[in-house]
């Protein structure tokens, strides 16, 4: 990691900066220190993984645990491969991906416009906020069965669960993003006789974008959780269904293979959101 993957900026004080304030530049804290790694240091993390896998393989093969309790990594790979080659992994994965993406789209769109309304309109804020907070206090797992009853055990109920789980964090992010816009910049747009649409397009959207994109990264992984929760409760396809099915038949290798696929899916979505952030927020670099 040379720090490039995790964009962050320095905070050199500049002439004109007030103490403790840096002209409204949001900062990202580096996740990894900005060391230049020597080639062999890149091997450290993969080596640890390899060691754990080998120990796991030895433990599983030693016969201490039955294979339906602890399958060996090679068994899991084999199971994963058989799922992939007969097309069932693709089929179930595609269902889950569709739920995740539709839920994200619906949840984020609703959160953005409602958040925008609440940030701009005091009446809307006073009227809606208590209900939104109460809605968030309901554990999504607890109302998932209800949603299945109402919307059926098909894809629709899962999309709604994903949308709900994504909704609140995105809503909060939108409100914070909109409220953080410097009043001086609003004055500027006002003084330049900008139309409401111009103010949205040239000020509000770009100013809120860092927070919105940060929210997207969180939402992407949350949405995967939402889909699995829905599939656990009742489904006939999807990766969550595969896990449930594997548990029922003590096909532990199947469970692990499906979990692996799910986390890869979540990581990929997170990566795509980070990439989008990197491209759109080039001014922060």
């Amino acid at each position, binding site marked *: 990691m040379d720090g490039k993957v995790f964009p962050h900026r320095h905070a050199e004080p500049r002439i004109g*900066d007030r103490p403790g304030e840096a002209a409204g530049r949001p900062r990202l804290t580096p996740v990894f220190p900005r060391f230049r790694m020597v080639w062999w240091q890149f091997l450290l993390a993969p080596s640890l993984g390899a060691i754990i896998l080998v120990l796991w393989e030895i433990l599983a093969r030693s016969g201490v645990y039955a294979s339906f309790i602890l399958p060996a990594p090679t068994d899991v790979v084999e199971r994963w491969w058989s799922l992939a080659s007969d097309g069932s992994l693709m089929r179930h994965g595609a269902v889950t991906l569709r739920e995740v993406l539709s839920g994200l789209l619906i949840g984020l769109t609703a959160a953005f416009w409602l958040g925008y309304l609440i940030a701009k309109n005091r009446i809307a804020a006073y009227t809606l906020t208590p209900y939104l907070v109460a809605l968030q206090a309901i554990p999504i797992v607890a109302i998932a069965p209800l949603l299945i009853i109402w919307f059926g055990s098909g894809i629709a109920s899962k999309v709604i669960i994903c949308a709900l789980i994504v909704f609140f964090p995105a809503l909060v992010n939108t409100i914070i993003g909109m409220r953080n816009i410097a009043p001086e*910049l609003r004055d500027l747009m006002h003084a330049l006789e900008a139309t409401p649409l111009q103010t949205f397009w040239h000020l509000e959207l770009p100013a809120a974008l860092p927070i919105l994109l940060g929210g997207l990264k969180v939402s992407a992984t949350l949405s995967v959780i939402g889909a699995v929760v829905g599939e656990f409760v009742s489904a006939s396809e999807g990766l969550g269904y595969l896990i449930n099915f594997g548990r029922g038949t003590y096909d532990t290798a199947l469970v692990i293979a499906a979990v692996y696929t799910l986390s890869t899916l979540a990581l990929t979505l997170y990566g795509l959101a980070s990439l989008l952030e990197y491209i759109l927020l080039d001014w922060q670099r």
Partner: protein
Amino acid sequence: MPNDTILAAEDISHTYTGPGGDLPTLESVTLELSRESFVCLVGPSGCGKSTLLRILAGLLRPTTGQVRLEAQPITQPQRRIGIVFQKANLMPWRTVYSNLSLPLELARMPASEQEERTTAMLELTGLTGFADVYPAALSGGMAQRVAIGRALIHDPEVLLLDEPFGQLDALTREQMSGELLRIWARHRKTVLMVTHSIPEAVLLADRVLVMSPRPGRIICDLPVPLPRPRSLDLLHRPDFVALTERLRRSIHPA
């Protein structure tokens, strides 16, 4: 109202209504800005200078009285009035170039004219080499130059400056006053500038208005008969020093 008056405040009062009760900030302020004159407004902190400027810009409504741009009462902001704030107030996601061109974009000016004007403004403000730089990389002085360029680019007739150099260090500040003189010589606008610095006011202005502590009233209207073009050399001339002394006494009567 004399014919060459462009912006006039007529008997303006403003009371800030807050949770702690009413706070009168301005008390019957009357002033007239003649076309192409440079007027500075000085006064103690918190005397309502910025409030007055916001009222003149149409960003804030006076409690009583009215502002006229030529014959028309101002009830909302006008493109004909440019404004520069204390902070440079640049959009961090736009480069220097596109921060400058923002007013032209909002006015939906044809692209070729936008480009022409922005390039000319980059040159005038000495920022040509910084066109593609984001504001985070600019020093305070450079950022404020962009802000001044942005306020001038759509050619407003009146320019209101609210302590534009207030956050700069003394050296940069003096240099920026020189820059402003140079720019103003090229683009004669009607300027009203709020400042804390007496020498800065005398150096730049044709007329200096002094405000009282809150609630603000205009207590002194001092003409500055120093010849133009002026430069920073003026700072040491005896007539300049005498004027700053007079001004200082009117702010802090012994």
